[in-house]
């Protein structure tokens, strides 16, 4: 399905841009993560990688919907 990826921090550096539209054969956050790590192996090296949809963290089993805006959240470091 078509997904609108948004990347912050090091995720933006890895993907090379802030916004990326992809068409992936994935149903869940877990599958999206797997696919992203295939396309951008540098994600494997991160401490963690999380995802948010509608400003909420979404866990591995969260079901994606076509055209979702999925925000890629690399390890946070506020404060």
């Amino acid at each position, binding site marked *: 399905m078509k997904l609108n990826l*948004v990347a*912050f*921090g*090091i995720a933006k*550096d890895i993907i090379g841009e802030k916004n990326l539209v992809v068409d992936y054969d994935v149903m869940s956050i877990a599958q999206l993560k797997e696919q992203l790590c295939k396309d951008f192996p540098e994600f494997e*090296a*991160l*401490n963690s990688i999380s995802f*948010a949809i509608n*400003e*909420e*963290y979404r866990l591995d089993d969260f079901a994606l919907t076509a055209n979702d805006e999925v*925000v890629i*959240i*690399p*390890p*946070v*470091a*506020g*404060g």
Partner: protein
Amino acid sequence: MRIDIKISKDVLDPKICSDFVSHPSTGGIALFIGTVRNSTNNKKVLRLEFEAYESMAVSEMKKIAKAVVEKWDAQRVVIHHRVGVLDIEEIAVIIAVSTPHRKAAFEACEFAIDTLKQVVPIWKKEIFEDGEVWVAAHP
């Protein structure tokens, strides 16, 4: 309004935060102020750059503030976070909490900064003389 949440490109002010949480029946006010450190692992840091996923960061900061109000009976809570380029010693974050009893203010304030560092989508890049690094990104 009991909570004041802000992500700001401008300098943060401890006085504004302590004034906001001041309340006639407060037993104690605790503040945490995080400033930019001049080194990491003995390596000299020139400056920091903070980036936020602003709408979600504000939403997560609100959740933290609400948890502080509920768990510690806080009277007022402020969480202000700076973004953009910060020099050494500049204030990156201020958390202020007022509670009816003193001990709760410390606990709540520490909970708030600990949780902020774990969940709020803000990223920090350290700029060195010979390069730059996204903090905490790699093991």
